[in-house]
């Protein structure tokens, strides 16, 4: 039987990991992630979760422990933020290159200096090219659900998956969550069946030296796994809906049917943008919203299908690639390039380091996009000049 609980985003992640029956957890404290593993360590110590908690001395070691535990055949989990994720960077490559379906919750926190603990996406987006799949969630329910879904997809394509949620806006904000029936979760997510394991009696070398005559094929296979993951995300997201009442896709349209002007958002700001779109619709605007949920694998087809023929598109980026543009803006533009009827796309940088993005900010962005005649390289929203 499913139950309702009022949970912060962090605790939703912990319960998501417990519902996924993770077997090895290794983590290191960092604000705003800490509560995720506080609760998990308690659940393990109380015997409510049958797992080993490896209480390590750094995030680098946390990821390393997950990697070797996963290589030994266990379902492994960790969570971190910002500097912690950056410290893991080397091992994020290792996890993906070793094709280990680890799930990591990253509570988006802006990078220092100057010191900050508030949300933006530069931490997770700096890890974009490590070979990890990335899901950006809008709500605490979605955080809970996405941990389970992440394992379901990761264990089919043998790539690790990051579930990303906003610091404080989600991590420390309570929402009612439906904890689905465990029997049904077990049915949806059966025990992990590894392809290869490190164990006594199987004398193999795992991750040994690959010379130029063999290395490239490993990378080709990773890319193919990513490509296959698009379809698996779609299939598993639908099945999730059939079983638990809420389906998930890689990109999700809102009021898009007849929309001429589209706003693209990522993460919790999507909820804010929903209200803005409702307001704009009330004023007679043909406004639509596209929630960008899965960045890797990249949903090329669906994105093109949803944006083709629109009048204009605005991407709100809570991140920046210094010297270039917002990162989702780059990604959307490059995906639309092959289309003959591609709409002009405008990129807005907003909400860095946890600065609020309000409903009226989104409405402003919409109106600004609508009246713009020429493309601007980068448009800042809410910066004090």
């Amino acid at each position, binding site marked *: 039987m499913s139950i309702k609980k009022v949970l912060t985003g962090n605790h939703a992640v912990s319960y998501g990991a417990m519902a996924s029956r993770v*077997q*090895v957890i*290794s983590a290191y404290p960092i604000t705003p992630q800490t509560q995720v593993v506080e609760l998990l360590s308690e659940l393990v110590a109380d015997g409510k979760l*049958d*797992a*080993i908690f*490896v*209480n*390590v*001395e*750094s995030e*680098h*070691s946390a990821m*390393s*422990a*997950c*990697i*070797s*535990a*996963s*290589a*030994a*055949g*266990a379902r*492994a989990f960790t969570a971190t933020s910002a500097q912690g994720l950056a410290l893991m960077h*080397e*091992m994020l490559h*290792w996890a993906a290159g070793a094709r280990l379906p680890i799930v990591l919750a990253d509570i988006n926190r802006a990078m220092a200096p100057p010191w900050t603990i508030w949300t933006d996406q530069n931490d997770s987006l700096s890890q974009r090219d490590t070979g990890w799949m990335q899901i950006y969630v809008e709500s605490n329910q979605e955080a809970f659900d996405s941990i389970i879904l992440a394992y379901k997809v990761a264990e089919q394509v043998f790539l690790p998956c990051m579930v990303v949620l906003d610091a404080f806006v989600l991590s420390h904000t309570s929402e009612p969550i439906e904890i689905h029936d465990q029997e049904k979760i077990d049915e949806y997510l059966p025990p992990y069946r590894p392809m290869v*394991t*490190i*164990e*006594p*009696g*199987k*004398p*193999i*070398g*795992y*991750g*040994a*030296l*690959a*010379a130029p005559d*063999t290395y490239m094929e490993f990378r080709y296979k990773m890319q193919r796994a990513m490509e296959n993951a698009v379809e698996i995300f779609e299939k598993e997201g639908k099945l999730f809906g059939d079983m638990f009442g809420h389906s998930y896709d890689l990109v999700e349209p809102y009021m898009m049917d007849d929309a001429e002007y589209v706003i693209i958002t990522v993460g919790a700001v999507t909820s804010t943008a929903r209200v803005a779109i409702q307001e704009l619709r009330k004023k007679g605007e043909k406004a639509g919203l596209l929630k960008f949920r899965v960045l890797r694998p990249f949903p090329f087809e669906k994105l093109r299908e949803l944006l083709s023929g629109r009048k204009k598109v605005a991407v709100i980026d809570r991140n920046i690639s210094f010297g270039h543009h917002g990162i989702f803006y780059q990604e959307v533009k490059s995906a639309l390039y092959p289309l003959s009827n591609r709409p002009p796309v405008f990129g807005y940088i907003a909400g860095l380091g946890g600065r609020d993005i309000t409903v009226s900010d989104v409405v402003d962005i919409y109106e600004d996009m609508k009246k713009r005649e020429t493309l601007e390289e980068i448009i800042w929203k809410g910066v004090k000049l």
Partner: protein
Amino acid sequence: MIMKNWQIPEKELLFSGHAACQGCGGALAMRLALKALGENSVATIPACCWTIISGDVLYHALKVPVFHTAFETAAISAAGLKAGLSVRGLKDATVFAWAGDGGTFDIGIQAISGAAERNEDIIYFVYDNEAYMNTGIQRSSATPWGAWTTTTPVKHPEDKPKKNIDEILAAHKIPYQATVNVAYPEDFIRKVTKAKNVKGFRFIHIFAPCPPGWKMASDISIQVARLATQTAIFPLYEIENGRNYTVSYLPPNKLPVIEYLKMQGRFKHLKEEDVEHIQRMVDENLDYILKKHELTHGTLENIPRPEFYK
């Protein structure tokens, strides 16, 4: 030399076809260690010579599995393997990390300290060839005072003493640690077997000569390794719980350090006063270890001094 009491298991778990240099102490160390550990073992190896020695993606020279891992992660990688195997019910597998001195004394020390402090149930081996040999003989904090390396050139040789990794581990009060030398295979096997049967974090410090790195012929590897212990440059001893010291062997006649140094090109530039300085450091270190032994046992009389070990 008289070969008596020669008790080394015959079964080989390291096969020919591995990629070690001739006279490699690290390769011999693995061969010996596996004889003691047996097949119910798994290894994790960070960046080091052994990354290459074990074979590339198409070949594997060992009869135990190896999980290759990043440079600084050997200890935690082993702990993660242990955790993963345990939740799968394979609780009795011996999990060991196998790292070089760079991966242990330098870049890996944080993860080692963490794993040692948590008393993770693994064996950590360091095969110490006293420099970054795989990258081409750069100094590490295991490089001894006075040695030439490519980053401590002859005009400016290593000017810091070798880091005392054994005392660092002893400060973690781990259940068992020992120094071993590939030139003393029986002692080596005995200590690894003992380590295998202890629970918790175990640390084995292996003296592993490197002919290319030490600038010596490959056929004198064992001779030089033996001289390291006969001169007390590398004493053989065990520490239990960070407190109880047991010296495993004392040379019947301790040789002067010059006997060891003069065999190797990496020490060729040393002047007489340099050798004297090294002799003083070696004597002080041996004195310290003997005092710890005496504190533990109340006597020095119980230290073996077999002629056989000459």
